[in-house]
């Protein structure tokens, strides 16, 4: 019984490594060199030496991309890395200049997905958040946020769902307003007191700023005012400030 899964995994690996590549063989995009030379570096970085050049008019296949470097294969089967600047000077089979789908201001104004990390202050405690967002139109998005609050007396975990309105999505820097709800689970520090863990519902309203940084990156600064609907007599109110980096797709 113990060996079976391993045998299956090994078989699957063999299958993947042996059978998968041929099916991809003919799918690589091809471009034609239009600059006097296309320089092939040994690695995906500006410092790696140029070991081969491809002359104008020759075609190369693009195998893969890592950040701003492209692994290409020449007609005589040599493989090397070419910078994005040089790739932009090549021609597609249609004769058009090659372009790539990189993040840009235009794309930023109408992206669909966003994910990021934020850190800041939650009522005097530190907070770390990760969030994902889906935009159903450029100015309205659904945010799902998971936060970890690390305080001196207690720690909390928060899970929120909210709607954010981006006031002017086509601007590089735009104000946002937000509204949402979720739950907060709080655990008092063990060295402080013998308090019980508790879970409460929360609601929040907030405002913020969203700014385009470069490529696929954006910056978000958010303020949220939370209301904790506790089982005790009065509700608690908490202010949160956080700043973070996010990526859009």
């Amino acid at each position: 019984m113990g060996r079976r899964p391993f045998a299956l995994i090994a078989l699957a690996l063999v299958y993947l490594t042996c059978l998968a590549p041929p099916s991809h063989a003919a799918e690589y995009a091809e471009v034609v060199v239009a600059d006097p030379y296309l320089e092939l570096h040994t690695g995906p970085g500006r410092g790696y030496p140029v070991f081969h050049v491809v002359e104008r008019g020759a075609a190369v296949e693009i195998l893969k991309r890592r950040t701003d470097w492209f692994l290409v294969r020449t007609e005589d089967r040599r493989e090397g890395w070419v910078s994005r600047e040089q790739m932009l000077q090549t021609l597609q089979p249609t004769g058009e200049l090659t372009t790539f789908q990189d993040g840009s201001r235009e794309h930023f104004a109408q992206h669909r997905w966003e994910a990021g990390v934020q850190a800041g202050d939650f009522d005097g405690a530190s907070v770390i958040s990760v969030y994902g967002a889906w935009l159903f139109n450029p100015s309205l998005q659904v945010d799902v946020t998971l936060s970890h609050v690390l305080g001196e007396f207690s720690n909390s975990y928060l899970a929120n769902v909210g709607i954010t309105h981006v006031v002017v999505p086509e601007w590089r820097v735009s104000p946002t307003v937000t509204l949402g709800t979720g739950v907060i689970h709080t655990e008092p520090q063990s060295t402080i007191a013998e308090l019980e863990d508790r879970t409460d519902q929360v609601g929040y309203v907030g405002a913020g700023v969203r700014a385009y940084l470069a490529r696929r990156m954006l910056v978000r600064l958010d303020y949220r005012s939370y209301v904790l609907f506790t089982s005790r007599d009065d509700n608690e109110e908490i202010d949160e400030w956080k700043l973070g980096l996010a990526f859009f797709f």
Partner: protein
Amino acid sequence: MEVRAGLFLLTSVVLAAMTAGCASAPPEIEVPQDEREAARIIDPQIERRDVAPPKIDSENFEIGAFAGILEIEDFGSNPVYGVRGAYHIAEDLFVEAALGQSEAGLTSAEELGGNLRILDDRDFTYYNISLGYNFLPGEVFLGRNYALNSALYVIGGIGGTRFNTDDHFTFNFGVGVRLLATDWLAIHMDVRDHIFATDLLGRDKATNNLEGHLGVTVFF
């Protein structure tokens, strides 16, 4: 802005009028029947070519596991293992998220004090989100025939550490070496300091928890 929109509208109206004028002109010229037939045969119905950017396999994500030694301040050196994932933003810059797990050993007082035990729970787990900068890219030569691409990076970030059932806000910073065994397989060597404040031994203090580990990651 409005002036430009108005200008655009005006231009469009003028252009539309001009094309309408041109389009209605040809029927007035008398063209013999057979010539019209010929014209129809060579009617240039060029199919619009799709000029979408080429689809390229981007390998900017990296995922893997690591194992090493973590020296927990006051609690000895212990094995640590975990998983990490990274997203390469640019040639020099990447973000990394890691999850690690270790177990605290005994303090000197516990070693000497017989049945004395300070911790309720000896598990030490951490997570962090960090920004890394590849500042010395290069190559490592293995003998005469092999050269591995390498990079030395500095990395730092924030996260949380759960130790003795409490969470602590944790800063981390360190250096690492990434060796690319192939285009998609990397070997990491990392040294990292995890810094957090705790009052576990009576008074509040910042603890430095040094970690050294080896890791393997795959680009995809």
